[in-house]
């Protein structure tokens, strides 16, 4: 049997997923009102049109306006682990204005002081910079206000409204409010409705922007996402909504855009004429940890494929935007999602693989299988691994397979995008002992962020041996500056009114229109014999076969 190579297959199978079911999943055309709103959002005035000349050349040429950061779900895990440490870090490095207030909203009873004390404890555990800087913390603590509130309580929201008005006077927050919904997804609609009911969504001309940050998941299928968007749009204009997926705030994801559109040499070869296929991997060595109940409801397709994997795919495949403004970027991403062939039952059966981990060994430690994890059904059919073959039906990518995979309890934590270029048309070095492998451009997103280019080189000596070598660029060898945490980046962007790295309603729906047919098809067919891969392996054998039938194989990461 001929040795398998990573490249070499024709692109003729790229359109294996039949384009059926598109009409049902395609979002409805926008109404005239929605178009007007979109145009208005593109042309809306900058929040602060008078730049500070002393900021030229500094880290930020514009800083957030005075404002209140209203954190719903302030006592929850996400708030304590991610959101509040990010705010503290922005505060301690002087990236938030002095006229700032953190209004923590949750059901449990706290005073301002007792909540600040609890935050302080969390920061000692979760802040990426230790020890906690006392002077900075004491200043921030003064700006923390706790508001006990049941999200269904009308009177409670009236009190919140009053409190925010008071802060405009006492703290100089100037009518600007960012509402951050770090809550259960099921509570989003109610909170947004209440915000609308008390008029907290109303922006005013003399200052007073209102923005709402919504955490993923944005729905659990196409219909629920569309419903959620519809409910949100009853209260808020799309330009006020910031759907956060922390993955998009990662430095290397952002750099992907710079890499593609800031370097002239790659774009000419970034198409079906030169690229054989693309592999995108999001591998985790962890299991579901304490999130068994959550994971039972989501699985890898909802947790990773619908957002992280498809987001990375859009960034790789999108056309150059006309500018780096939020809507220009997001328009191009949506175009990619809409060009992905929509799966049907048959294409899901042959092109999408699901897996569930059994027991095994990871990083030298024995690990339990998924069905033995806490809060997991012992006969669960939830997938912890998904791999799929997708194609993009447009002029740039037609015939180029995109292989996507994500899984838990894989041998290592690694996220990578690999662009495999086509093989050379003629092998000139026949006497060489080994064929050089095709060129690969790999972008590592985590860990060890960097970019690698694989190419052939002659082995020094009298013969003409050709070997494959790697040219490796690692971020931490070129930049002294620490990368910020993704939440710091995204919260700062939301405060600055930059929505480039947030997901738009149509983008969410377009992504669900790719994934929902897969989930629906799985519901209609018997599950594989789970568990079908051992913890510490690279997933089920069927995932390897998915590429092997095309004469390719997954990259060894």
């Amino acid at each position, binding site marked *: 049997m001929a040795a398998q190579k990573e490249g070499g297959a024709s692109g003729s199978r790229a359109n294996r997923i039949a384009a059926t079911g598109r009409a049902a999943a395609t979002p409805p055309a926008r109404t005239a009102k929605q178009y007007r709103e979109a145009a208005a959002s593109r042309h809306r005035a900058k929040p602060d049109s008078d730049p500070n000349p002393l900021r030229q050349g500094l880290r930020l040429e514009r*800083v957030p306006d005075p404002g209140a950061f209203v954190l719903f779900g302030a006592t929850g895990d996400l708030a304590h682990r991610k959101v509040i440490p990010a705010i503290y870090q922005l505060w301690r490095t002087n990236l938030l204005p002095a006229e700032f207030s953190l209004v923590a909203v949750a059901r449990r009873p706290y005073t301002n002081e007792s909540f600040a004390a609890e935050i302080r404890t969390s920061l000692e555990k979760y802040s990426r*910079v230790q020890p906690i800087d006392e002077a900075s913390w004491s200043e921030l603590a003064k700006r923390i206000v706790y508001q006990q509130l049941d999200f269904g309580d009308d009177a409670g929201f009236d009190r919140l409204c009053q409190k925010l008005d008071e802060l405009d006077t006492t703290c100089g927050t100037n009518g600007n409010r960012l509402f951050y919904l770090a809550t259960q997804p099921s509570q989003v609609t109610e909170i947004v409705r209440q915000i609308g009911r008390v008029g907290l969504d109303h922006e005013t001309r003399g200052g007073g922007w209102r923005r709402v940050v919504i955490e993923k998941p944005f729905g659990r299928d196409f219909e629920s996402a569309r419903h959620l968007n519809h409910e949100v749009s009853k209260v808020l204009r799309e330009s006020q909504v910031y759907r956060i997926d922390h993955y998009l705030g990662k430095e290397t994801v952002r750099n992907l855009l710079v890499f593609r559109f800031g370097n002239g040499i790659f774009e000419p070869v970034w198409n079906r004429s030169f690229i054989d296929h693309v592999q995108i991997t999001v591998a985790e060595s962890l299991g579901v940890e304490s999130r068994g109940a959550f994971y039972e409801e989501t699985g890898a397709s909802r947790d990773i494929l619908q957002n992280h994997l498809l987001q990375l795919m859009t960034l790789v495949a999108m056309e150059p935007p006309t500018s780096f403004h939020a809507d220009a970027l997001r328009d191009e991403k949506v175009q990619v999602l809409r060009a992905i062939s929509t799966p049907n039952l048959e294409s899901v059966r042959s092109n999408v693989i699901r897996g569930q981990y059994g027991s095994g060994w990871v990083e030298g430690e024995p690990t339990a299988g998924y069905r033995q994890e806490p809060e997991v059904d012992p006969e669960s059919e939830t997938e912890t691994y998904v791999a799929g073959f997708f194609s993009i039906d447009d002029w740039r990518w037609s015939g180029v397979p995109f292989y996507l995979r994500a899984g838990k309890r894989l041998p290592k934590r690694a996220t990578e995008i690999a662009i495999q270029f086509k093989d050379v048309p003629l092998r000139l070095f026949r006497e060489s002992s080994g064929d050089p492998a095709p060129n690969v451009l790999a972008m590592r997103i985590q860990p060890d962020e960097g970019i690698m280019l694989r190419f052939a080189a002659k082995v020094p000596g009298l013969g003409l041996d050709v070997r494959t070598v790697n040219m490796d660029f690692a971020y931490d060898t070129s930049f*002294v500056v620490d990368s910020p945490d993704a939440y710091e980046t995204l919260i700062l962007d939301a405060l600055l009114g930059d929505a480039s790295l947030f997901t738009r309603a149509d983008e969410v729906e377009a992504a669900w229109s790719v994934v929902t047919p897969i989930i629906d098809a799985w519901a209609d067919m018997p599950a594989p014999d789970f568990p079908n891969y051992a913890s510490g392996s690279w997933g089920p054998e069927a995932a390897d076969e998915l590429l092997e039938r095309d004469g390719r194989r997954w990259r060894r990461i």
Partner: protein
Amino acid sequence: MGPLPVAHSVAEIEGQLGTLWAHAAVARADAAKAEAVLMAAQAEAAARAAAALAAARDTSDIGGHHVAARTSVLNLVVVAGDEPAARHCAETIAATAGHHPSRSLILSEVDERGPAGLEARVEALSLSLAPDDGRPETGAETISVTAHGETGRHLASIIVPLLVHDLPVALWWPSDPPFGSHRSERLLPLADLLIVDGSSWSGDGLDRLAQLAALAGERRMVVADWALLRQARWREALASVYDPPDLRPHLGAVRRIQVEYSAAEPGDSSGQTNVVRPLSHVAWLASRLGMTVVEPIQRNDDGSRTATLRQADHAVEVVLSPGQSKLGAGSTIRVEITSQLRGAVVVGSVAAGDRTVEVSIQHNGRERVRRSFAAPRLTEVELLGRAIEGSSPDPVAVDALAMGLALLRSPSGGVR
């Protein structure tokens, strides 16, 4: 492989560089073989294979590490002066090399009147990104050259053949650069980037600052002055004073800029405290706020220095006042900006410690904001790193340097 012998010519240096990296390549091949063993091994044999890999690594000779790539992103030429300074620079470069692997040429001189000659030592720096995790490392090289006698006056002839072609050249002159001398005329044209530390210059440093500013203007040379780089945290803090929209208009109504600095002696009576940093604050502010010089800087009997600027239709008083503090001589103690607009007087004040910066804003005599934030003083390693990263002209620095020159010009047009 033991330490390489001392080289006495450029040809010997080049020969040693070849020997050094050929040896690293052998070590690399050994390590690669062992890695192949590791990959082929079954799980139960992994520990044994890992031990084989470790053993193979032990046979490599750049610090016992597995060197995967020889890397350079620039040529870094250091005119260190004497040998102790050269050692200090070498330590700083070694700490920076992980981020900025470079071919470093560190030049020092001894025995100016003795016989001509050179002694050179070639070293490889093994750059571990994450020590002991088994990941491949990159390597860079340092060439330390001590020039004797007449050779010291012809450093360019040593430097040029040892530069890695096609890479930018940064010239780091850590002591007093002799601008205008035969030596600087030979060395400066080699450089794409000049790295200096204006705050370490002898005397008050202002003559040399004027020379540097004139040179940068005439030759359009990219200059990274640590004195200015150190002020990044001050600039952030001063900018933050005017971030509130209602205070922004005050930037067009500045009446007074006062910089208090730490004097080497009470009242800076001899005038020998280096005041490059205090002056740089003023130059940056004036250049950003559209000011012009009416009266250049002059020293007064009480040890202070004053100047008069103009912003739009009003004068701006500038005062550099010596003070006493535990900070090193020439360090800034406080920067204070006073503005007056429609009857409102705003005083923005910034002071800095080792790890924090404190900002306060007084509005008509009442404290509006007092805030401290984390902004540690930059180390020499960080300063060198930032200087290297800033290899393209920074318009803010260019403007500040030009304003510095304007502040130092005498009324007759000459420089001080």
